[in-house]
């Protein structure tokens, strides 16, 4: 059957039909999200597939008023943790891609192994630790947590990235009198701007979308990230679907923008993180 379908001339319309049908399935939940977010409660009653007849922004206003503080929180946490984990990842990646020393491979392996850690296994000590050092419910507590658990992937990504920069470049630089540090700032850093973009976006998206750490390391809105606040809209506004949808839209807007404008870098990050991992 498949054989005949593929070999028999080229039933283009069938291929396109399948691709379009799949696109429809992939976009269906998103349609529900956008459509419902612009509806009034009355509009919702007209059914989930009926397109919105006039744009209503009330749900966005309501959602935004509950999400204002969490949006600021998330922005601070995401920027802090992305900058920190990306910078540290570049430094560590530099070391493990260009210098061999006793135990370097074992140490590198042990760092990257952290990527496969199920977070449930460290939740209790993590919460306890954050309480002990008074970082529970603080920005810095979350920044530190995201940075720490980001290290395995940022180190791996940068090591793979730097591995593609020829060693000869460093050798000739060291002949020219470049030290460890100046080789990094004068040779590696200028060459790694694309790497920073890819890893930075990867981390930005991951940390922005985090739920578990936000849920366990914050209490109330003080440091609460936007994902947790959106999930809580459900509890506080029972069955007010348009507000929930609007909240979900607001919370995903930055990521959607990144995907739209920086898709190439996103794809590169996904492939870098996966294929060589």
């Amino acid at each position, binding site marked *: 059957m498949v054989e005949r379908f*593929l070999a028999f001339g080229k039933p283009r319309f069938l291929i396109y039909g399948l*691709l379009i049908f*799949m*696109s429809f*399935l*992939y976009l*269906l*939940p*998103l349609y*529900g*999200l956008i459509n419902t977010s612009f509806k009034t409660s009355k509009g919702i009653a007209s*059914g*989930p*597939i009926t397109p919105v007849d006039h744009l209503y922004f009330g749900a966005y206003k309501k959602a935004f008023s509950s999400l204002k503080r969490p949006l600021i929180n998330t922005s601070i946490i995401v920027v802090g943790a992305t900058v920190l984990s990306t910078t*540290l990842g570049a430094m*560590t990646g*530099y070391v493990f891609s260009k210098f061999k020393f006793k135990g370097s491979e074992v*140490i590198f392996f*042990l760092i990257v*192994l*952290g990527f496969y*850690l*199920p*977070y*449930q*296994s*460290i*939740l*209790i*000590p*993590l919460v306890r*630790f954050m309480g002990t050092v008074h970082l529970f419910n603080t920005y810095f507590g979350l920044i530190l*947590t995201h940075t*720490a*658990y980001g290290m*395995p992937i940022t*180190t791996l990504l940068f090591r793979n990235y730097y591995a593609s920069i020829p060693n000869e470049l460093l050798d000739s630089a060291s002949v020219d009198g470049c*030290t*460890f540090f100046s080789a*990094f700032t004068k040779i590696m850093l200028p060459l790694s701007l694309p790497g920073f973009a890819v890893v930075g976006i990867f981390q930005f*998206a991951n940390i*922005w*979308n985090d*739920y*578990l750490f936000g849920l*366990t390391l914050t209490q109330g809105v003080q440091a609460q990230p936007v994902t947790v606040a*959106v*999930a809580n809209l459900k509890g506080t506004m029972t069955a007010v679907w348009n507000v929930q*949808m609007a909240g*979900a839209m607001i*919370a*995903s807007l930055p*990521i959607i923008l990144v995907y739209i404008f920086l*898709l190439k870098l*996103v*794809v590169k990050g996904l*492939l870098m993180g*996966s*294929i060589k*991992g």
Partner: protein
Amino acid sequence: MARRKLGIVLFSLPAIALVSIFVYVFVGQSINLSFTDWRFARPIHWIGFDNYIRLFTLDRGFQTSLINTVKLTVFFIGLTIPLGLGLAILLDLGVKGRGFFRTIYLIPLSFSFVVSSVMWMWSFLPESGTINTILRTIGLSCLAQPWITSTSQSLWSVGIVYIWQFSGFATLVYYTGIASVNPELSEAAVIDGATTWQKYRHVIIPQQKPATVTILILTLMYSLKCFDLVWLMTGGGPGYSSEVLATYMYKVTFNQNKFGYGASIGIVLVVLSMGVVGLFLHYMRRGEHG
């Protein structure tokens, strides 16, 4: 030389320190806790393997979560891989707008699980949800399902969301893998009279092993770690019908305040994920030696 040593230490120390504490010390503490009966505001006693014995012999909730985790993993991976491969092949058949379709399939990956859970709970509503409404509108009301509200379907419903979210990623990895197959090989096969189907079956698909392993390890990790979607969509319910290890651990720890017992469930998860990593390393090593 001394400067280089200093550089290596300075540059790698922050990462080493962070990972040592947040990964290895914390896992060590969890192992320690898992041998105690620590509960909120109660004295701690060392109880040896009691928690583990209880998990595997008495605790129905745990056993159900373990089985559900395996079921969800098999369902999720078993459909994500063929779907990803199939879509990648369709895109490879010289269609116009490949990039466009690939982007659409990748869209779900951009959303946080929180946002996906909101969209899908709306889609799954039995009475007024998008899916059942569409089925009724096109005259297929017999296919309308109770989805997450039913004990027999809640786990699979969550699985569908996972597939929706990750299959575009599998498509991307396979698509890249197919594009990197040496074109001379497939051309030679076509010259030798291979049909399009034979070209894929005998030349291209056999070379997708690295892509498959990549997708396998990532999807396996995601299904072991899965917490957000289950927690937000079903809370593990109805009953224990969609309970997985990660949500059960969370309930035991943060709702019932049984920290020692919760730690032991976390350790079971670590053992499982290290098993996955071990299998992966084994495969890589075999690959290296041919």
